[in-house]
């Protein structure tokens, strides 16, 4: 049986109707195996139905529930209470929205604004190589795929972009990956356009190699490694 914990959540609230912000404390007694999304649901059910927060799949595959807990950007659906207590060595948690886009209400941010950077990096093959003459799929050797497959696992949760030391005029780590994957993908022929995005004004020159992105990524993608490869021209 997992332990019960007495915890306090200090949640950042924002009401768009009155344009007011405040911090609200919620005290809870909960089992250690509950996830933070379960805590928010519990608050909605038992204490405060007006607290707004986002999630969808609730098993770390969609990247909707990103937020900052005691300053660390993470997916609240995969943070269990017992893990949080151990990781932060406290029972008091500051809960804040991600910083990459304006807040709509409480913990809900306007992800659409954040996604604009991903769109700018063109998350598709701009110009696919001509089809295989045999009429079926392209051949991609596993060792070629292995070089960039980790980077394809990104779910655009924007935790890395929140942790990044460059907050202005930068595509951000995840949008950089969108571009890098296609630079490494043998099926993309628009390499010139991709390189322009990579080295452009909002691209790699903005990265200050702090590696915060790799440190926080819930998918444990070594984003900094890919960006470093790209800077060195060691991809493609």
């Amino acid at each position: 049986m997992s332990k019960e914990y007495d915890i306090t959540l200090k949640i950042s609230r924002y009401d768009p109707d009155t344009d007011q912000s405040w911090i609200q404390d919620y005290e809870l007694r909960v089992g250690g195996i509950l996830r933070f999304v379960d805590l928010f649901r519990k608050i909605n059910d038992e204490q405060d139905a007006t607290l707004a927060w986002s999630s969808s799949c609730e098993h770390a595959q969609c990247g909707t529930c990103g937020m900052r807990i005691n300053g660390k950007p993470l997916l609240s659906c995969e943070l269990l209470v017992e893990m949080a207590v151990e990781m932060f060595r406290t029972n008091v948690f500051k809960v804040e929205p991600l910083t990459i886009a304006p807040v709509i209400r409480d913990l809900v941010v306007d992800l659409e604004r954040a996604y604009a950077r991903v769109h700018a990096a063109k998350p598709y093959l701009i110009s696919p190589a001509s089809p295989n003459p045999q009429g079926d799929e392209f051949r991609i050797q596993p060792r070629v795929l292995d070089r960039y497959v980790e980077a394809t696992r990104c779910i655009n949760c924007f935790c890395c972009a929140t942790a990044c030391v460059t907050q202005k005029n930068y595509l951000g780590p995840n949008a950089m990956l969108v571009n890098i994957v296609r630079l490494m993908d043998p099926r993309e022929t628009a390499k010139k356009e991709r390189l322009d995005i990579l080295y452009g004004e909002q691209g790699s020159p903005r990265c200050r190699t702090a590696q915060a992105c790799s440190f926080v990524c819930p998918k444990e993608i070594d984003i900094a490694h890919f960006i470093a490869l790209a800077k060195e021209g060691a991809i493609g």
Partner: protein
Amino acid sequence: MTNTLKIDSVLRPEVLVIGAGGAGLRCAAAICENRPGTSVVAVTKVHSPQKSHTSTAQGGMAAVDPNDPMDKIVYHMFDTWKGSDCSADQNIIKKVCESAWEQIVWLERHGMHFSRTEQGRIAKRPFGGHMLNFGQVKAFRACYEADRTGKGIMDTVWGETLKYGITFLNQSIAVELLFDNDRCIGAVVFLEQSGKFVVILAKATIMATGGKTRMYQVSTNCKQNTGDGLALVLQAGLPVMDVEAVQFHPTGIVGPGILASEALRGEGAVLRNAEGEPFMERYAPTARDLAPRDLISRCIMKEIREGRGCIHRDHKLPHVWLDLRHIPEHVHKTRIQEVCGFFRKFVGVDPQHELCPVTPTAHYQMGGVPTNEFGEVQRNAQQIVQGLYACGEFAAASLHGHNRLGTNSLLELITMGKVVGDKIAEYIKDADLPPESPPEGTGCEIFSRFSRYFEARGKESYAIIRDELRQTMMEKVGVFRTGTGLSETIDKLTELKSRAGQMQLHSRSLVMNQELVQFWELDHLLEVSMVIAQCALARKESRGGHYREDYPERDPEFHHHTLAFMREYGNVNLDKRPIDMSIYEAKGEHYEKFGIIERKY
């Protein structure tokens, strides 16, 4: 009333896509490929199309590779027919299985990152119910991207539609369908972020709102899968089909019910009971752990009922074990990396060294809104609704009948998505424009619902009603069903609905008011559950995912689809649609395999 509910603006694209998941966007991409420049608006409840539930699909997508010397399309067609317990439509089976490989290649050419063989070709793995030689040995037929196949599809179709410049309205909810006489002309959409209502008038409307199993206590489905699409269709007086056919996936991770893909068993994982016995050998000597899902779910429940299950130490829930310890480390690390991570994160188990606790979880709706083979929504067995289309999990054409085989759903999204897109591209060429202004009464249905929520006073709790609903559905309309349990459920649902009228909102805002949307969703869950329970009560036989303990056999009298209408809560009218048996009737090679066959694995 503090809020005035009104239509804020009107949009007039050529095509409206309700639900920007894998199916909706594959369909939109096909429309744009046929007619570049078509104006398309796609709405989704989630924050970005990429967050749609398709992204979470793990295991793979079935397709017979023409280069495969062993596999044949007819085997895939047979498996699908047998898997459906003889209630899928054979015209659909044929269409989907025959176009499967072409659609895999389409995805690959548009950038999907399929896992590869040493030769650089798309890799394939076995999956439940997919076999060679009409059910003899397991087939390698599921094309996959590690255990992220759905994400691969979602990213690809989203990228393509982005490239074509279609308009997305995110966190936007379709709340009412609009008709001009009998023709569908669009929908009213509620923008959660601004609290505004917009009317979208289009020549063609596609519904692709996905699954609905959030009315079950344990479910793999995302929070947004609350049966909205089905409820909107019912509210418009249109039928839903075979909704009693709900799939319970055998291996949900105990507790939250998160899916542990069949791909694990495809890679060699074995189910064991408390005594360590690999019990599937007893029930399905040939297919064993790769028997179809309905069958395995029942076997697990039987093991638990007969005292050979375990109780989870934290969640206090019964379960059996999934054993992955003998699977090589490199497979754990490269092909089933995400799922193994779920066990570590959510139940603290290391699948490489420990047994994993699993239990059946509500997963998929085989039924949905009835369509013909072009995705045109049907008003009854003979007539279609002009201008209204459906595809994906939401639609029942029906490829799956009463039980779906794993990997056939993703396949359906991309094959039928394309078929429906082609059809719509054709239709909008000559179709009349919708009327200049929204028809009289636009918004009435949704405004009266929202007003009711705003005005309701009472002490009933949303959370309690939601939980009672989920418990009742899980216990009485789950893997096993009985006439008595179903009748009790219907009474319970009536009670819950009336109690739901006495829930009071805590905020009167329209902007990002999640409680308001939850009230609306709860109404849908109650409505759709009522139809499921009544259809399940009426089908006095067992077929696929619908298992009646009081009628444990399949009965020829029920060899038909069930159409259900519900204009008024609880008042369900049933009708029938014949099952298409065109492969059998054509009397071609192997036709005898497509008759009413025995279902043994």
